[in-house]
């Protein structure tokens, strides 16, 4: 567990959008999907997911509907709206820019060394 990374602020929303972009999921499913696509490298407390979900629904990026899960339980399923898809594209692009910039900066060798 100790090698799991803390999430940067604001990145949970991006992960949720990414997870849901592969198909409608309920909350627990999203958590599993994030674990799966990130190779369980990120530490997310389970409850922390829900404020993010409600926020994204309020912002119109996700839509939710009640349905039945594989476990035959009632669950609320989330999927991307058009605005959500657009936001995911934008956020992904800007994250990649940021990540590569930071990676490049950190890769620089100090000249005086």
């Amino acid at each position, binding site marked *: 567990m100790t090698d799991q990374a803390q999430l940067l602020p604001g990145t949970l929303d991006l992960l949720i959008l990414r997870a849901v972009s592969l198909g409608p999921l*309920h909350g627990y499913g999203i958590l599993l999907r994030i674990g799966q696509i990130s190779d369980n490298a990120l530490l997310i407390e389970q409850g922390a997911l829900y404020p993010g979900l*409600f926020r994204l629904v309020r912002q119109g990026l996700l839509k939710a509907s009640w349905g039945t899960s594989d476990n035959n339980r009632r669950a609320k399923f989330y999927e991307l709206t058009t*605005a959500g898809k657009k936001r995911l594209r934008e956020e992904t692009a800007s994250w990649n820019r940021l990540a590569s910039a930071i990676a490049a900066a950190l890769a620089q060798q100090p000249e005086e060394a």
Partner: protein
Amino acid sequence: MKSLDSLRIRIVSFFRPEDLRAEMEEELRSHIAHRADDLERSGLPRSEAERRARIEFGAREKYKEEIHQAAGGNFIGTVFQDLRYSLRVLRKSPGFTFAAVLTLALAIGANAVVFSVMNAFVIRPLDVPHADSLYALQHGNEASGYESYADYVDLRDRNRTFESLLAYNATQLGLDDGRDPSSVWVLEASGNYFDTLGLKPSLGRFFHAADEHGPNSAPYIVLTYDYWHTHFQDDPGVVGRVVRLNKHPFTILGVGPRGYNGTLLFFNPEIFIPIVEHPLIGGEDLNTRSAHWVFELMGHLKPGVTPALAIADLNSIGAQLEKAYPKDERKMTFILARPNLYGDYLGRPVMAFMAALMLLAGLILLAACANLGSLFAARAADRSREVALRLALGSSRKRILRGLFTEAMLISLAGGGLGLAGSVVLLRALTAWKPFPRWPIHIGVNPDANVYAVAVLLALVSGLLFGAVPVRQVLRTNPYEVVKAGSNSRAGRRFTVGDVLLVVQIAICAVLVTSSMVAVRGLARGLHADFGFDIKNILLAETDLGMAGYSEDRVPAMQKRMVEALAALPGVESVGFANGLPMGDDGASSDVFTDNTTDLSPSNAMINATEYSVSPEYFRAAGTTLLAGRAFTWQDDKDAPRVGVVNAEFARKFFGAKSEGAAIGRFYKMKDGTRIQVVGIAEDGKYGSVTEDPRAAMFLPILQSPSRSTQLVVRSTRDPQLLGAAMRGALHELDAGLPVLIESREGPMGVMLFGPRMATISLGVLGLMGAMLSVTGIFGLAAYSVSKRLRELGIRIALGAQRKEVLQAALGRPLKLLALGSGAGLILGILAGRVLAHIVYEATPRDPVVLAGVVVAMMLLGLVATWLPAQRALSVNPLILLREE
């Protein structure tokens, strides 16, 4: 684009928070169940799996709160929570709540009243189309706008900067519509009046420039809507009806727009007639250039014309006229002014007065805020243990502050609402009030949206102001210290912000108390001043024989008959009459010249003297003492040599008379060259206002300078009610068609005394409020300091402290602050009193009565405010106290 879901979740969270909670609950439960399923599959028993799932989920309550916030429902929810909590807290201390709400209601009410008066007089534009380009002409050298009709015509026709220029004059005429004849206030308006202002009749038609064909060519009447409503009961049949004005037939053309009462804010005329009818109703000839009787000219500037350009235009016409008619014209320069308050004549004093009042009202509000701020700070300190406990239990400081602010807002909004309601009642009454029965004066100050907005804004701002006082206190609260050490760890010796606020507030209140006392005392003295005539045992009957159609030659005989009829009434000692009365509202003045002056242009005048035409018996009836010489007789008529009685000031200034009789027999000249011989010297008096410096005045025999409009002065000790009815009856018997107004001697003085009276009343009210605020302020501090130190006081008493020492310990500080504030306020008040001296007669702050009064008043206030806390301090039972704490 937001999905419907987003909308739905907001709606649900707003209107049905319990639905959102249920949905959230179910979702979280479903999550835990799914997790438990997985754990079970990995080999845990179901119950253990569920336990683990719950633990892994984390702090459920915390997340629920966060979800609420994320769903947008939280804000409203917490506001309601805060509201409920604040209401509960406030209900627990009704005394505090009541005092706070009342304080604010008074302060905000005062501000609302003052603001709406200012709004009505200064801010609100005139209710005519395009009021922003409407300007009135005002003389460059004085705040008036009088012109002669001939000058008006020249200005109207020669200017190139106004769309059109209208003129009007106000007068009072007798209107006879076949029923009871009554006097009406008339606006004599130029033919282009309504067209220039862009008004539309609500019935019939207006008169126009095309209706004027020289003097007395347009006998038409336009009624104001209000007069049509009250006197003709909205009868549409009035159009075309012929009524008599001063016995001359006039045709009613139409009715003015609803709510239009002329361009002067205070003055509501009842009918309009064309100004070319002026000679017919007994006025000056239209062509006499020296008679400046037209009240005011005004018009819209042409598009693109600046006021400066218009002034230059008018001044060049003025210069031409001065050159062409050097004998008749004075200096003819102009400035442009707003017509609402007759330019600067009323505008400037009203503006200055309102600004001063607004400032005082603002100070009151500030003092109230300071007051409430310190009360709030005291309460916050009292509640520091509660605050500490809440902080320790995990409440955020933000949330606690929000609670405090919610309380402040509740109080300020309640206070604001109450204050506004009170001020609306007061303003309605003020609007319905007619301060002077003789004059069509209205003070239309009904509140409008501006007023409401300002009141709400003031309430919110003051809530923020006094709510902000305890903020620092809460932010600095260290929960562990407070819980450990108890609330009263520090016995502050140094002056705190609250102390300074209180001193400032008491100083402000002392200023208000001082100035209101100065004003009230001045007014009281003014009423007992020596006016140079009697006020008691005098009844006046005002008539205008012109209204009953008397021609000039029949006037003297009729006036003599009126005097005889009134003198014959039982209980009447003497009867005189005059064309106007000292301290009345219709005084005239003239330039007078030395006997050997030949060039009688204004610049050669020796002095300017107030002028009255009076009957033989006048001095005796009015109670004006003759110091030397004789009064007039009925023989001082047109055929006799011209004579006059002057007052002592006239004799001193004009003749340099050292003794009272020295001026008798000497001559002076009037503007028209008439030589007048002084036959009597009257005592000095007040003529224009109670605060004026001694003025020269002259009295001329009314038979030698006749007037149709007179005040009969009846001296009698009979009951004024009965006498008034008898006088009316006697005059009615002489001529049933003559409108009569019976008044006390103070009646016509009301106009002169109005300003000082209003100033005194306003200051008195503000002073009273200031006093109340000091009481609540000191009370708050004293009560707080007693309750803070109750334990200490108990110990002192237990150790044998005397009552005096206990009181000193408990109340020394508030009283010290009171003394400090009062001292500062008194000094400031004395300085402010100098300003008052200009408004109120003999208002001097260096009056020992005022000084003593202020000191006594502040001491009394201190006593009242500290009475209850002192009682509480003295009744401390050390045993109970020490046992309990």
